[in-house]
């Protein structure tokens, strides 16, 4: 274990120059990411069968849904963590994306790339509308206005579903991107991985450009940003439009991945989970959004796996795990969020350096 716990021990002198080493590591990381879906599907490595718990009770669908959630978390963190606009309306943008995909794809039968573009546009428009109250109100009041927007969109979705489609939900076909059919989880994985990488790169690029920096400035000190010539009102609306376009695309993908969506799929708890993700990962950190989404989507399953492993035991804990495993998982999860909020307010990205410092000390001493 110990050599794993210290990430790059004696390797440094062997490769003195920084960039080739970095190159190799990137290559290895890409190889690992490319191999991951194979591992999760075949569930064996070098011919050795791996048990479910060795793979942490994870499956490929989970990873795919995590990647979709990452899009949502990235966009929400960009909006909330970077631009300082708190929104509980993220489920509404997902729903907007799903709805426009249903109109463009399922009803009109247009090809998938058009569906994606259309839902991004619809999401952007919806985002601008949802952002308009920010011209009048701020802080908590604005949070509540996004919540109101959520209920309005949820209602529209419900009416749309009941009037146009069957009672069991809105159906979505198998998407096809220029001949590449997203028919298996494996294909989805590579498509989503590329998309997440693209969105991540785009958002972090924008934060290192003129207006993106202005967003951060506006979050930190609105009056100072204004005095530098930043029109914060327009900038806010722009940020809203951009992030909800991303969220809407994520919603489209989510609906297509599940192949059937109902209005219940996009409830207020759906929106809240994105807030939890960015808080867990780290507000204002795009990397944190990825970590938060990964944790939120994967951890319940990991806890469930362990709960199942120990479920056979006797006594109070055993019976609790046997009878109420689902509740137990929720309990652990809620407590974890509380603990993180109290002890790691900067999210998991903020404890990284602390852990490294601790490890460094441990290695030396």
């Amino acid at each position, binding site marked *: 274990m110990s050599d*794993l716990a210290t990430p790059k021990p004696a390797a440094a002198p062997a490769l003195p120059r920084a960039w080739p080493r970095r190159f190799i*590591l990137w290559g290895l990381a890409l190889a690992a990411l490319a191999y991951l879906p194979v591992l999760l599907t075949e569930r064996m490595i070098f011919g050795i069968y791996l048990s479910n718990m060795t793979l942490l009770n994870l499956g490929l669908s989970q990873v795919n849904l995590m990647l979709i959630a990452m899009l949502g978390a990235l966009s929400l963190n960009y909006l909330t963590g970077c631009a300082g606009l708190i929104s509980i309306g993220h489920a509404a943008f997902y729903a907007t994306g799903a709805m426009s995909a249903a109109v463009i794809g399922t009803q009109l039968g247009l090809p998938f790339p058009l569906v994606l573009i259309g839902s991004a546009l619809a999401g952007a428009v919806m985002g601008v509308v949802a952002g308009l109250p920010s011209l009048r109100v701020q802080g908590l009041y604005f949070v509540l206005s996004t919540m109101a927007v959520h209920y309005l969109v949820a209602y529209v979705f419900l009416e749309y579903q009941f009037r146009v489609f069957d009672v069991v939900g809105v159906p979505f076909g198998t998407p096809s991107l220029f001949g590449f059919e997203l028919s298996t989880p494996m294909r989805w994985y590579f498509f989503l991985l590329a998309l997440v990488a693209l969105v991540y790169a785009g958002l972090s690029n924008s934060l290192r450009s003129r207006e993106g920096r202005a967003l951060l400035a506006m979050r930190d000190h609105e009056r100072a940003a204004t005095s530098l010539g930043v029109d914060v009102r327009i900038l806010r609306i722009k940020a809203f439009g951009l992030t909800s376009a991303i969220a809407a695309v994520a919603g489209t993908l989510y609906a297509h991945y599940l192949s059937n969506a109902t209005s219940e799929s996009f409830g207020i708890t759906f929106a809240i989970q994105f807030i939890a993700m960015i808080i867990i990962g780290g507000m204002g950190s795009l990397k944190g959004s990825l970590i938060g989404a990964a944790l939120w989507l994967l951890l319940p399953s990991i806890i469930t796996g362990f709960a199942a492993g120990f479920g056979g035991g006797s006594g109070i804990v055993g019976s609790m795990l046997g009878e109420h495993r689902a509740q137990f*998982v929720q309990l652990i999860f809620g407590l974890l969020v509380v603990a993180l909020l109290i002890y790691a307010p900067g999210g998991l990205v903020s404890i990284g350096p602390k852990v490294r410092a601790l490890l460094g000390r441990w290695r030396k001493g």
Partner: protein
Amino acid sequence: MMTLTRKILPTRSSAYRALLIAAPIIACLGSAPALAQNTPQDGVHPDRVDWGVLMDLSGPTSASQSIWVAGLQDRIRMVNEAGGVHGRRINILAEDNRFNAATDRIAFEKLVSQTPVIAISGMGTSASQVALSPTIRAGKVPIVGTYTSTKALSEPVSPMVYNGFCGYKEMAQAGVGHYVDRLGLKAPKVATVAIESAGGKEYHDFIAEAVAKRGGTAHHITMKVTAVDVTPQALELMALKPDFITIYGVPNTAILTMKALQQYGVKIPAFGITYLGAPQIFTAMGPEAGANYTFASCFTPGGSDTLPGNVEMMTFAEKVGRTAIREDINYVAGWVAGQMISEALQRAGREATRAKLVESLSKGFTIDTKGLSAPIVYTPQNNTGPVLFRMFGYDHATRKFTAFGEYADSARYVQ
């Protein structure tokens, strides 16, 4: 796993690293029990066979679905205590879908490939049934004993799907037929009180169809799942003056409707769907309002008769300390599903595989519940399962369910 971790490990920032340091530790812990045995593809082990259950155990419908799972597990426990099937213990892997289609997909995939099971029961979330139905129909894992059935999954008939609960269509036909005949109606005027959900609308359509056949009219009245006060609905019912009411929804839907009608001194008979058959629902209504309420069921609730199936279930439930829920209709339904599981495995033979199970079931089979349910017969042309119904009321004095007639009586209503 270790190789994998090491590959990713140094590439990301420190936080990622911290996270990934934890992963191999967890993995090592996890692999300890895992190394003890090698999991074969179809969930059949030398000493046990794994069988999956996909139900809502912590979401909004967990109140009824978890009781169904309890019934199923108790029946399996009884089977296991008697030595299992073909010398193998049945091991139920119950996955929680939290009434969420995404969680359901993850759990389904898990039961198909991660912790392989021979077959799956339950699938209580209709939205995800629809979403998963192409996968199920084209896949290898049969669904034996569904908790709810959607058209997408059950039509056309497939050797991969066996309904295990009372169907809404037949329920509507039997209920409408029973009440029209009992009240001697010519052109019945019926009101459906339903929660605003997909299923509610579907059920209303079945009722409307059955009522139309008898020359009557049906009205749809909706209610929120979380309603606290149903004055508007009660007023609408009073204005409508239907001959009888049919209720679809959660226990609260039935309780509030009946209590509100009682408040206004209106005595219109009503029947609920099978899921709304629990002693607590009747006790919450109170004797007066409860007297007008019955529910349509293809299962016989615990304690309502002394047929062997019922006695067997009540005795075992008492033994394992389930006295609080053994009279709930969901418990009975789960118990019957448990019996379906053991008999299906019996048929699959000593060397059971998924393929053998599907093959043996597809020839058709019958479950003899010894009076605990309507006849359950599956044929290659029809996997609907129980289709006959009885109405059940509740005697507040004796705290026992009382049945109206026999299952066979409803045969003339059901097509």
